[in-house]
């Protein structure tokens, strides 16, 4: 189960973006690649969240959470019609 990938929403602190990045999406990508070489972004968010969604194993999610500039790594949740 530790290897099973799930979707996470990664919230980034944009103000903590290192100076070597001019584009925040490159910073997001570098952060993701640092914990998972194969993971890809599902979405990059601009207006509602500074961050992205991706598929990670629980271990990768924990590693991501510990990285600088990461605010939170929240598991995806399901909503239902009312």
């Amino acid at each position: 189960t530790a290897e099973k990938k799930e979707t996470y929403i990664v919230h980034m602190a944009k103000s903590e973006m290192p100076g070597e990045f001019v584009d925040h999406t490159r910073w997001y990508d570098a952060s993701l690649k640092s914990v998972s070489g194969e993971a890809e972004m599902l979405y990059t968010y601009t207006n509602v969240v500074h961050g992205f969604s991706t598929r990670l194993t629980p271990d990768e999610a924990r590693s991501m959470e510990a990285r600088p500039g990461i605010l939170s790594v929240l598991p995806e949740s399901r909503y239902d019609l009312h």
Partner: protein
Amino acid sequence: TTRTPSFLGLDQNAAMFPESDSARDVIVGVLDTGVWPESPSFDDTGFSAVPSSWRGECEIGTNFTKSNCNKKLIGARFFARGYEATLGPIDETKESRSPRDDDGHGTHTSTTAAGSVVSGASLFGYAPGTARGMAPQARIAAYKVCWIGGCFSSDILAALDKAIDDNVNVLSLSLGGGMSDFFRDSVAIAAFAAMEKGILVSCSAGNAGPTSYSLSNVAPWITTVGAGTLDRDFPAFVSLGNGKNFSGVSLFKGGALPEKLLPFVYAGNVSNASDGNLCMTGSLIPEKVRGKIVLCDRGVNPRVQKGSVVKDAGGLGMVLANTAANGDELVADAHLLPATTVGETTAKEIKDYLFSDPNPTATVLFEGTKVGIEPSPVVAAFSSRGPNSITPQILKPDLIAPGVNILAGWSGAVGPTGLAEDARRVGFNIISGTSMSCPHVSGLAALLKAAHPEWSPAAIRSALMTTAYTAYKNGKVIQDVSTGKPSTAFDHGAGHVDPVSALNPGLVYDLDAEDYLNFLCALNYTASQINSLARRNFSCVAGKSYSVNDLNYPSFAISLEARGGVVKHTRTLTNVGPPGTYKVSVASDDSVKIAVEPQSLTFGQSNEKKSYSVTFTAGAMPANANGFGRIEWSDGKRVVGSPVAVSW
């Protein structure tokens, strides 16, 4: 919708609402199951060019092209990456990988909010009339985020991200998830960003009523909508062999039952299954059902599916019996066989006969559509109830709107029951839920936005809430159908929406992003949590006294220890009407004393702000006890009302 424009006073006061380009420039974004663009409710006859502010798109996909959008349905997008990442590729034999609505729900909600005027609408002749959305001149943008397997937060976030880019003015979300803190709740997070851009976000309160603490979408920057009934019913009587008749409701249309009483059986007695009374798939014994009317208990499986199960077993008709979970609330369905739904009280009487007569018989008589039903509205049993489990100091739901037996546009891909075996296709369907009440408020918010383009989302919500009504014309408080007793602010919030009064509320309780950030400080959110939610470094000032009670909300919720206490709230009113002096009046039950200071506020000019304080004093009460009251400011013409709910 038919009937709701009249029920809400819109038809009678059409001249009060703007018909200008400002109304046509308001864009309502609906996150749902997509859209059926061929619905006549998306007819764009008479519409001017798409507003220049619009940045959206009509995305192509399965059975959906750019030409499916027009000057009414100006945008349609779909978001499936999160869904497909979890559940695998969309099965395009079952659902369209495009904005097309294969479910019906999204077409129903979007046309309720802002559908064009369609004469001669009905479902099989039921609820006939001219159908229209609440803001028929507004534009619609559909964002498909819900699929057969559900609606995933990564897709919802992406849709709301785009909707903000696209420049929608109102967002309507008839969906919800579990209860979680705002910084973990994707809808709350995205709604915060939308609010900052001046977009009003209207969400359904949920269908988990009448249980307390059952609300969804309770963030204070969201407008949370519960459901009430209309003054319309679809009676279908059960006539028993003992000569007694009982009323129920139904939307059945088809071959009539034989003109004689038929053998009548209880599903639990014609099944080998332990839950045979529920008419679950395959649970009925055909030899014991064939040619008979079957009484099934409500619950677990869909109501319409029970009818299908009875039909498959050879039954000729069904009586669907409410249980305690639903009480006497009657939700009508377009059953596949002659069937009627009866309330719990009626069901008990019918069962008494069914279990005592050795050869019980019955038939069902369909009476069509009846209007003028009183009392109306009543709070729907299913409508989720307060208190607010996340922040008890914010009263939710904010208000109620029509959500029971609502006729609106439907998908051509599915029958009115939504069952695979339902081959019927309809242009309009009648369904119920807070999903249906939410887009009513979204459309009404669009009307207010057109009339008052400068109003913030909080000001629009305030206008809707402070002018909502809590009593019938005879002075009696709006009933709760689950109890048959007067409803409370935990059921109806500020009351039932009254859009005509909301146009000219006189005063509003305004709020901006800074106010909500201070509110988060009052909740002791960490800097990181605030950053996750509001995308910024916002430091709560050390030593500063933040209070949830200071959020300038149009209602009051006081959460007390069992020993009682004294709680002080402050509020600021903004004048959006002519100059005038407003005097306060308070009402409360014996459990709480309400004192307002000052007692009078004079406004000399537009947008002038005046503050007041309220002190709530309450004694000891048992835990979970509730008390209620009301604070009203009036200049003699307008009443700016706020509900008060106290919980121990």
